């Protein structure tokens, strides 16, 4: 008989996040039941997708990987020629019946494809295999970068880099690459980044340089977080959040609402919850048996934390504002489905860890 298999600790953690999200959204969204209902429906869809994917065996995913990746790449190319422009960037593809961002598919397809390439040979990868893996990683990232969507491009790049790291890319080479990055980043800043992206970085270094303009959002967000203090101002009591000082406060900047109202204690709990979820993912990676699944599980888990880090980092004024939502807390559907799908794959890996021995 077919039995639904799920990973209970992971599911429990994710559900806790979802419930927190609804509470924060009630406050951040101006106590609108429409927002809560919308978000709850999306959560339902996302969790269904997750549970469905949890039933799929990793070797099935392995077989489908090249096809999925190629399809995603073609759609990215289509976006460039025929995509819709939303908020100044060309990210959406209209297939007639549904409108979506191919870059979302690539968030999962790219690390999977990199793992696919790398596990075709023994680890650690030789030079030839490294070049191939880098190629399948960098090509879609370049497409997404020119949309332009710097945040997504970087995070996808990170997810692929994690696979290569887990596969045993030597520490010596890692140091060399880090050194190169230190040299190349200032050059990229000057020649590659668009003026609006440069402004975001300047704003980060000194938000007070333009407190009425580009620095406004960061300053208001930092004021909201800081004024939360140890205990917070209480749910729906954040004067900054409720006073409409923070743009995008129910999407990308929801963390400032959360921390203003819940205080340092709330933030500690939230970060602990995230860490626990990621730790569970790494645990799954550790105890699964085949190499492909290990790499994929490790990358998916850690990438999730990168999302958390980039979002909180930007809202707290440590990182440039790149438009990355706070995973599973921010309002919005597309990224939630992708994230949950990732956890579905993770659960699938765990569910089938001992499948072969049965």
């Amino acid at each position, binding site marked *: 008989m077919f039995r639904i298999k799920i990973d209970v600790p992971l599911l429990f953690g994710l559900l806790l996040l979802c419930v927190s999200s609804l509470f924060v959204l009630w406050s951040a969204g101006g106590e609108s039941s429409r927002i809560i209902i919308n978000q709850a429906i999306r959560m339902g869809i996302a969790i269904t997708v997750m549970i469905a994917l949890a039933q799929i065996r990793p070797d099935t995913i*392995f077989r489908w990987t090249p096809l999925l990746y190629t399809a995603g790449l073609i759609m990215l190319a289509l976006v460039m020629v025929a995509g819709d422009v939303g908020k100044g960037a060309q990210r959406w593809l209209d297939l007639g019946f549904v409108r979506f961002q191919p870059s979302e598919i690539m968030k999962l397809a790219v690390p999977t494809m990199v793992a696919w390439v790398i596990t075709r040979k023994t680890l650690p990868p030789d030079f030839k295999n490294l070049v191939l893996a880098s190629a399948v990683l960098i090509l879609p990232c370049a497409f997404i970068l020119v949309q332009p969507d710097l945040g997504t491009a970087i995070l996808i790049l990170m997810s692929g880099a994690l696979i290569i790291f887990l596969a045993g890319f030597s520490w010596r080479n890692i140091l060399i690459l880090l050194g190169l990055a230190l040299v190349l980043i200032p050059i990229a800043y000057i020649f590659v980044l668009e003026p609006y992206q440069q402004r975001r970085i300047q704003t980060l270094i000194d938000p007070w340089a333009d407190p009425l*303009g580009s620095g406004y959002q960061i300053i208001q967000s930092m004021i909201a*977080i800081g*004024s939360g203090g140890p205990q917070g101002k209480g749910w729906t009591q954040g004067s900054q959040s409720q006073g409409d000082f923070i743009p995008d406060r129910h999407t990308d900047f929801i963390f400032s609402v959360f921390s203003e109202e819940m205080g340092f204690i709330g933030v500690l709990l939230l970060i602990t919850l995230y860490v626990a979820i990621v*730790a569970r993912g*790494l645990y799954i990676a550790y105890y699964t048996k085949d190499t492909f699944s290990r790499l994929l599980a490790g990358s998916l888990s850690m990438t999730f*934390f990168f999302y958390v880090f980039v979002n909180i980092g930007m809202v707290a004024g440590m990182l440039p504002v790149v438009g990355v939502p706070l995973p599973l807390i921010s309002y919005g559907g597309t990224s939630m489905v992708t994230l949950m799908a990732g956890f579905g794959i993770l659960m699938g890996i765990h569910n089938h860890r001992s499948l*072969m021995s049965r």
Partner: protein
Amino acid sequence: MAIRFYFVRRITARSAHQIKQFMVADQIELKDYLRETNLIHSRLLALVVLLAVLALILVARVWYLQIYNYERFEVLSKDNRVRLVPVPPVRGQVFDRKGKVLAENIPVFTLEILPQDVKDMDILLDQLTKIIEVSPADVVKFRAQVRSHRSFETQVLKVNLSEEEVARFSVNRHFFRGAKVEARLQRNYPYGGEMAHVLGYVGRINQRDKGSIDAKAYKGTDYIGKRGIEAKYEAHLLGRVGVEQVETNAHGERIRTIDRKSPVSGDDIYLNIDVELQIKAREYLGDHRGSVIAIEPATGQVLAFVSNPVYDPNKFVNGIDHRSYNALRGDVDRPLLNRTISGRYAPGSTIKGLISMSGLENGWSQNKSIVCPGYFTLKGSSHRYRCWKRSGHGSVSMIESLMYSCDVYYYQLANTLGIDKLSAFFKDFGLGSKTGIDLDGEPSGLVPSREWKRDRRGTSWYPGDTLNAGIGQGYMLVTPLQLGVVAATLANRGKRIEPRIVGRLKHSLNGDNEDAVSHLQGAELGQVNASAENFNAIIEAMTAVVAHPRGTAYRAAGLNAEYTMAGKTGTAQVVGIAQGAKYDASKLTDFQKDHALFISFAPVEQPKIAIAVIVENGGSGSGVAAPVARKVSDFYLLGKDANAADSAQQEAPVSAPVAMVAN
């Protein structure tokens, strides 16, 4: 790849006993697998460390904001107490080339009201008007402003309060909740109308402006350049807005400033114009409508830019009232029209120098003489194209044709050259296109051609059109500015330079480097396609126009000159004169009389000033326009004021302009 899953299946059997039974090949793979396992496991542990580090960084950052800096942010978050107040920059001033202030910011007291703090507006206004005189028009305007803006936006009820009114208000201020007196800076133009057509003016930012400006840059700023230099150099004059973080009490009154980022004042602008010369040039023009433009040929610097009549730009700063505005608009003399840049006139005979040069370039000999019987007829036609001198000039050479401004000579020359060559040469001189001056609203004028007439008029070009073009009449249109540039180009022997009103910008850098100055220079537009020899021939003839006792401008401009001057008179018909009829000034109304024109430059050897004068309905160029150019040149080159000589006491020269030009 299937092999790897197959392999995994066996490993997961977790039985050492089973493993021993594997084949040798499998054992090699097993070694690989164990190595991979160890590798990935160690890497996963590294990720756990990374996870811990990243989490700690986040916690540390939030701790820094929420615990370490809690008090600071706590204060900031009381949003009704701590505000970000924009500090508007001081608008850059405008000076003339010698440093005289042309546009400044003067402190004024304004009576302002914050509607959201007012309990009953009618009572408040009633009481306020008892101690401060407010015109009914101001009250109407104020009420309209209040209606169209949000209640937390302060509105101005009255500007320019007297000291006495400020004192009276201060004593009674507790009665007037919501009203306050503020010291503000207001734009002032000390020379009034003299510079109006150059500087333009600033005005209050209106709804239409709001659509085209960056709202952030104008936070706290009420004025924007609307016309002239004020508009053209808006980006430089504006400056950069600063911001203050201030703590306020419950009434919104400032308690203390927490943090301040100072604004950066706008750039100060130094014009090339010499305001004394400008004033004198308009004075020499008298009551006539018209314009005078003076350019330093070598640099393209505009020395004087007069359009008469003028209006007072100060009236526009705080919004001109309807009655005054309608009076200005309805004035038959059209003071709001900037004639110098946008007035379009037939060039008349001033263009004859160019036509002669075009002839020389196309093989016409300057020694060739033509007999002028007082009229010219085309072959196969009886229509008489008349010379201005009905009795005729007799036999005239090229030099004489310019000296006497003989029309028949130019009918003949134009007919020989044809319109194609003529219009090409005019265009080469820059006519028919914008001069590129740093002011808006410049038309390109019109140089007619066969194609133009076919496209715009739908008829073909007739030989008679060419004859009219030969004496600067007909379709051709130039602006006074273009004529001035033609004079400068002649003075430069063909080198074309864009005219420039603004000479330099002095940047305010918050005291870092007070001497940061940008010099602005008009671009060099190239060389007119004509030989130096031919330029000299024409300049020689134009010198004769002024210096030769029989030249048309001798009495008006050449008599007793202390320097050499080259010039050409012109008269542009405003109304057509019927065949056989006689131009009789006495029978025409003022607005039907001919326009008088004159172009000149001096000294001929080393030109310092090129001038174009147009006097609307002035009659003849020699009679009215040429004396203006002579007086302007005298004042600029010698410091001699012709009008001062009229009055009893002769003033000493105001300055030594010749030395000044040498800079």
